[in-house]
C-alpha cells in the first residue's frame, strides 16, 4: 500500500482521509456500503462513557467478598470488625437479603442462583458478603476483616463424574434433589438413526471436547444503582446487553414497579454474551443504594470477571457418523455431557435447554440424525451460553465439522471433496435439517468453490505433499458452518416468558433529520452506523443525519437486546419496516403536496415523484417539513412523520461460511503457527462491508484464541486456574495472520432486507478450521484427533501418540 503524504495543516476539508474511500464525501453511501463507523470518533478521542465513568453525587462503592473454596457449608459470618473500619457504611450478607426475598434470584433458565450465599458456597469466587464504603479502597480493604467459618465439603469438579451415585449433591437447596442432574434434551429421530447406523458401510466415532472458555470482555461487569426513596425511582446504570429484559426481570425480582425503573446501558466495552445475565453484583448495588440512601457503584475486577461471570461451552461430545464407502453421509449422532456449573444460568430461549445445538447436522443432507444433551451441576461458576456462540451453535458447528474431517481421514478422502459431495443443494431450501430447524437459504457449493479458489486449495495440497516428503508438518483445515441466528419467532422463543421480538421507533424531524430508537444494545457492533444505514437505504436520508438511540429504557422501545447475532435479523428488520411505514405515510403527504393520488406516485431513494414525470417530486425533507407545517393533511394522517413497529421474526436467519486455515507446526516443539486464514462468509445482504469485516476479524481472533490457548482449568479441589490474564490467555496480534476474507450473497428470503446476522459467524466457524488444520498437519504421525486448546505441549503430547482431553 502506498500512503499519500499530505500536509496536516491547511488541507482541504475531507482531503485528509482521501486514502480511505469510505470517508470521502462523494463515496459516502446514502444507504448500504462502506462507511466509517459513526461511533468511532468518540471512542478514539476518549469520549466514550462507560459504566465506570458514571460518578454521582454522594456515590458509595461496593466490593464483594468471594468464596475461597469450591464447596463448603457456611458455619458463620462475622462482619463486626469490617463494620467498624473507617469509611465502611454497611456490610450485607445472605441473612440480610433473606427478609427482602433477595438472597436468591431466578436465573435465565428457571433455576435460582444465590445473590449472597446463605447455606453453602458452591463455586470458588461465589458471592458471600457485600461491603459498602466511601471509596473502593476502603471497601476492598474491609473485605479482609470479614471472618467466615467454612466447613469444607468435597467438590464435584470432573463433570464426567457429576452423576456418579456417590457424587456430593451440590444443589441440596432444591427440594427433593438427590443428584446433580439438570436436564436431558434430545432432537432428531433416535430409532431411525440407529437403523441407518446398523446398515452403514462405515461408522466412525470420536470424542470431541469443547472446553470451558471465557468471553473476557475488556470492560468487566458493573453497575451504579441510584434509588430515590422519596419518588421510589431506581436509576440503574449497568453493563447490560439487554437493558429492557433486565429492567423487567429486576422489576419482577425486586418489587420495584417497572415504570419506576430507568435502566441505562452506557457504552459497553465488549460483551460477547458475558453481559446477558443478571449478576449478583447488580442486585447488590441496588440493595446497597436502598439500604444506604446513596448511589452505589460496583465494578468487578479482572479476576472476579474471569472467575465468577458467565463462561462458555464446557461440552464433552461423543460423536458418531455413518457413511457409505464412497463418502455419502448417512447418519450422525451426538451424545453430549454439558457442565452448567453450580446454578443453571444459561441464557437461551425457554424451549431450548441446549440452545440451538439442533444445528449439529450442519450444512449436509443426512438420512437420519439424533442428538442428546445431558446437563449437570458442578462446583464451578454458573453461566453457560456466552462468548459469541449463537446459543450453542458454536459447539454444534465445531462438532459436525470435526466429525466430517474425522470421516474424511477414515475414508482417505479429501475433506473438501467430502463436503462438496454432501452439501444441501440450493433447490432444497427451505431445508428441514431433521433436528427441528428449517434453514432459509444457501448456495453452499458456490461459496465453497469460491473459497477454494481464493485460498488456492489445489496448490496448497501440492505444497503439502512436498513438505510432507521433507518431513515438515503443514496442515490445511476446513470448516463449513451453518448458523441459525436472530432469535426468534415469539411463538417458539422467549426468555423467562418475554417473547424475543424487538421494537423500533422512527421520527423524522421537520428539517428532515431523523432519530431511530432501537431496543438492541451495541457492545462494539457499530449499531449507530449500520442502523442509520438501514434507515438511509429505505428513505434516502444520509446516515449522518440519522441519530441512533439505544441503551436507555426510557428512550427506546421494548425488545430483548443484543446477543446470538440477533440485532440485524430482528432489530434490523424492525428498523427497515418502521422506515417503510414512514415512507408510506410520506407518500400520502407527498400526494397531497403534489395534488395527486398516492397510487400515482413512485419512490426513488429520497423522494416521491409522479409516475412518468420525475420533475414533479417532493423530497423526504420537504415532506417532513410539510408534515409538521401548516398544510392541510389528508384524512387520517396526523401531523408528524413518525412510526413504530415491533418485529416478530418468522424464522431464524441462516448465515454460513467456508473457512480455510493453513498451519505450520514446529516438529521439535509442537508450536502451531496459523500461517493463513481465509473466511468466506455469506450473511445475505451486506449493509456495511467494513463493519462486517470488522466483526469477522474479531471473531477469527477469538477463534485462534480458543483453538490455541484459551481454557479455564480447575484443579481437583475446584480452584479456578484461569483467574487472571497471566493464566487465562487471550490472543494478540502476534498469533494471528493477516486475515483474508471473501463473500457471497444469498439473501434471507424472509427478512425485509435479506440480511442475516454476522456478529458471531467467525467465532462459530473458525475453531474447527484451525483444529482440523492441526490434525491434518499431524495426520502423517497417525494423529486422528486433538482437543482445544492446541498449546505446544498438548500438540507435542498428541504427536507422541497420547493426545489427552483437556477435561
Amino acid at each position, binding site marked *: 500500500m502506498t500512503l499519500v503524504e499530505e500536509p496536516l495543516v491547511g488541507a482541504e476539508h475531507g482531503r485528509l482521509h482521501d486514502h480511505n474511500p469510505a470517508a470521502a464525501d462523494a463515496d459516502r453511501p446514502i444507504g448500504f456500503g462502506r462507511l466509517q463507523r459513526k461511533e468511532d470518533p468518540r471512542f478514539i478521542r476518549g469520549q466514550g462513557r462507560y459504566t465506570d465513568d458514571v460518578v454521582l453525587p454522594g456515590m458509595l462503592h461496593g466490593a464483594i467478598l468471594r468464596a475461597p473454596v469450591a464447596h463448603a457449608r457456611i458455619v458463620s459470618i462475622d462482619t463486626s470488625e469490617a463494620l467498624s473500619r473507617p469509611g465502611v457504611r454497611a456490610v450485607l450478607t445472605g441473612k440480610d437479603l433473606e427478609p427482602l426475598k433477595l438472597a436468591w434470584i431466578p436465573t435465565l433458565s428457571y433455576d435460582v442462583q444465590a445473590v449472597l450465599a446463605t447455606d453453602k458456597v458452591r463455586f470458588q469466587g461465589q458471592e458471600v458478603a457485600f461491603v459498602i464504603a466511601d471509596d473502593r479502597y476502603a471497601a476492598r480493604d474491609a473485605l479482609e476483616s470479614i471472618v467466615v467459618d467454612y466447613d469444607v465439603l468435597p467438590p464435584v469438579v470432573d463433570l464426567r463424574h457429576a452423576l456418579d451415585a456417590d457424587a456430593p449433591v451440590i444443589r441440596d437447596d432444591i427440594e427433593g434433589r438427590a443428584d446433580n442432574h439438570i436436564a436431558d434434551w434430545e432432537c432428531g429421530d433416535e430409532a431411525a438413526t440407529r437403523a441407518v447406523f446398523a446398515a452403514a458401510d462405515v461408522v466412525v466415532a470420536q470424542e470431541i471436547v469443547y472446553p470451558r472458555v471465557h468471553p473476557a470482555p475488556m470492560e468487566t461487569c458493573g453497575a451504579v444503582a441510584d434509588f430515590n426513596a422519596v419518588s421510589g425511582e431506581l436509576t440503574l446504570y449497568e453493563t447490560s446487553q439487554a437493558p429492557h429484559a433486565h429492567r423487567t426481570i429486576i422489576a419482577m425480582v425486586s418489587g420495584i414497579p417497572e415504570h419506576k425503573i430507568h435502566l441505562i446501558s452506557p457504552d459497553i466495552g465488549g460483551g460477547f454474551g458475558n453481559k446477558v445475565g443478571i449478576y449478583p453484583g447488580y442486585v447488590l448495588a441496588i440493595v446497597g443504594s436502598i439500604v444506604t440512601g446513596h448511589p452505589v457503584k460496583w*465494578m468487578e475486577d479482572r479476576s472476579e470477571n474471569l472467575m465468577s461471570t458467565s463462561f462458555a461451552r464446557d461440552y464433552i461430545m461423543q460423536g458418531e457418523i455413518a457413511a457409505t464407502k464412497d463418502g455419502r453421509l448417512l447418519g450422525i449422532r451426538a451424545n453430549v455431557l454439558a457442565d452448567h456449573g453450580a446454578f443453571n444460568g444459561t441464557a437461551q430461549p425457554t424451549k431450548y435447554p441446549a440452545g440451538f445445538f439442533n444445528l449439529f447436522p450442519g450444512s449436509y443432507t443426512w438420512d437420519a440424525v439424533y442428538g442428546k444433551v445431558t446437563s449437570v451441576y458442578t462446583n464451578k461458576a454458573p453461566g453457560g451460553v456466552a462468548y459469541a456462540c449463537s446459543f450453542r451453535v458454536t459447539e454444534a458447528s465445531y462438532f459436525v465439522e470435526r466429525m466430517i474431517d474425522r470421516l474424511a481421514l477414515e475414508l482417505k478422502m479429501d475433506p473438501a471433496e467430502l463436503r462438496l459431495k454432501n452439501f444441501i443443494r440450493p433447490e432444497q431450501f427451505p431445508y428441514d435439517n431433521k433436528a427441528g430447524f428449517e434453514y432459509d437459504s444457501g448456495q453452499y457449493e458456490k461459496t465453497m468453490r469460491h473459497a477454494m479458489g481464493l485460498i488456492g486449495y489445489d496448490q496448497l495440497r501440492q505444497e503439502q505433499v512436498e513438505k510432507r516428503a521433507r518431513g515438515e508438518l503443514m496442515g490445511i483445515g476446513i470448516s463449513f458452518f451453518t448458523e441459525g441466528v436472530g432469535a426468534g419467532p415469539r411463538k417458539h422463543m422467549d426468555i423467562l416468558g418475554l417473547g424475543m421480538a424487538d421494537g423500533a421507533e422512527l421520527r423524522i424531524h421537520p428539517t428532515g433529520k431523523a432519530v431511530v430508537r432501537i431496543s438492541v444494545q451495541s457492545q462494539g457492533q457499530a449499531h449507530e452506523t449500520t442502523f442509520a444505514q438501514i434507515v438511509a437505504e429505505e428513505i434516502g436520508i444520509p446516515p449522518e443525519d440519522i441519530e441512533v438511540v439505544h441503551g436507555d429504557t426510557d428512550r427506546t422501545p421494548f425488545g430483548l437486546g443484543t446477543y446470538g447475532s440477533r440485532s440485524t435479523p430482528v432489530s434490523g428488520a424492525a428498523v427497515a419496516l418502521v422506515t417503510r411505514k414512514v415512507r408510506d405515510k410520506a407518500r400520502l403527504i407527498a400526494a397531497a403536496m403534489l395534488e395527486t393520488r398516492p397510487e400515482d406516485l413512485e419512490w426513488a431513494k429520497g423522494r416521491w415523484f409522479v409516475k412518468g414525470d420525475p420533475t414533479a417530486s417532493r423530497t423526504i425533507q420537504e415532506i417532513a417539513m410539510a408534515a409538521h407545517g401548516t398544510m392541510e393533511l389528508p384524512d387520517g394522517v396526523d401531523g408528524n412523520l413518525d412510526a413504530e413497529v415491533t418485529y416478530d421474526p418468522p424464522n431464524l436467519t441462516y448465515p454460513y461460511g467456508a473457512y480455510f486455515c493453513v498451519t505450520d507446526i514446529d516438529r521439535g516443539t509442537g508450536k502451531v503457527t496459523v500461517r493463513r486464514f481465509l473466511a468466506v462468509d455469506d450473511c445475505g445482504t451486506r449493509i456495511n462491508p467494513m463493519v462486517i469485516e470488522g466483526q469477522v476479524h474479531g471473531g477469527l481472533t477469538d477463534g485462534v484464541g480458543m483453538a490455541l490457548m484459551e481454557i479455564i482449568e480447575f484443579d481437583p479441589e475446584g480452584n479456578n486456574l484461569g483467574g487472571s490474564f497471566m493464566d487465562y*490467555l487471550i490472543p494478540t496480534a*502476534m*498469533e494471528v495472520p493477516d486475515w483474508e476474507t471473501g463473500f457471497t450473497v444469498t439473501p434471507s428470503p424472509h427478512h425485509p432486507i435479506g440480511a442475516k446476522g454476522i456478529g458471531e459467524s467467525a467465532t462459530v466457524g473458525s475453531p474447527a478450521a484451525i483444529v482440523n488444520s492441526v490434525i491434518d498437519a499431524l495426520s502423517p504421525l497417525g494423529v486422528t484427533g486433538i482437543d482445544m486448546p492446541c498449546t*505446544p505441549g498438548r500438540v507435542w503430547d498428541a504427536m507422541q501418540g497420547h493426545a489427552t482431553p483437556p477435561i
Partner: protein
Amino acid sequence: MQIPAPFEYARATSLDDAIALLTRYGDDALVVAGGHSLLPMMKLRLARPDWLIDINELHELDYVRRHGDELRIGALARHRTLLESAEIAALFPIMTEAERVVADPIVRNRGTIGGSLCQADPAEDLSTVCAVLGAQAVIRSATGERVIGMDEFHQGPYETAVEFNEILVEVRIPIRPRSSSSYEKVERRVGDWAVAAAGGSVTLAADGTIEDAAIGVTAVGLSGRVTDAEAVLIGHRPTDALITEAGRMTSAAVDPMTDQRGSVEYKRHLAGELTQRVLKRAIARARRQEA
C-alpha cells in the same frame, strides 16, 4: 480495577537515599523498579509491602557501557534498552534473543534487568542469560559494595543474596573472543512466561574445538548451569552427535513440573531440543566471528 493492600511510598533521590530508606523501614520495605513483577503481585495481594521505595529517578543506574573486557549494565537499564543495544546484539546475541521474548513491549518499556534478577522467578529469562554469560552482580549497601557470581546471587526460587538493606546496582558480563551465544524459548503466546527455554554460549579454540561452553535452562526446575552437559562439549570438535548428547544430558538433568504449560515429559523434551538449537546457533555464530 485490582486494588493492592494499603502502602506508603517514597521516591529515592539518590542511591544513598534509597539505601537509607531501606535501612530505616527494614523488612517492611521493597524497592520498586519497573514494577512489572512487584505491582501485579501487590494487586493480587500476594505481596504486601508497607513501603515502596521507588528507584526510578536514579538515572545513574540506567546504562549499558563497555569497561575493558567487561560489559557493564546498570540495574535500572530497561528491557527495551537491552533489546535495542547494538553492542549487546554483537557481543551477546543470547541477551537480544531473550529480550525479544521477554513479555511484551509494554512490560519491556518499564521492566529492568535489576528487577528481573532480584525477582528470581524460575521463569525469568534474564536469570538464565546472566548465568550462561558468567555475569557478576554488584550489590551496594550502606557499608560498601560486594561483587558476586550468579550462582551465589540466586539462592532458589524468589530468593537472592540481596539483603533487605541492599540494592543491586550493576551487572558485569565478561567479553570473550571467539565466543557467541543464543537463546530460544517456547511460550503458549507472545508475552507468556516460558514453557521452557534454553540459553547456550560457546568459546571456540583456534583449532575449532570447543574451548568453553555454558548451558542454562529456564522454567524447568534447574537454576544455574547444566554443568554435566557442558562438560561433554568442552575440548571436542562440535558435531551433531556431540550436540545431541549435550541435549540428551540437559533433558536428563532438568526437573520440571506438570502444569498448564505442559507435561513433565514435554518440558524435559523441550529442554533437550532447545539446548541443541541454541548450541548450533551459538557455534555457527562463533565460527563467523573467527572468519
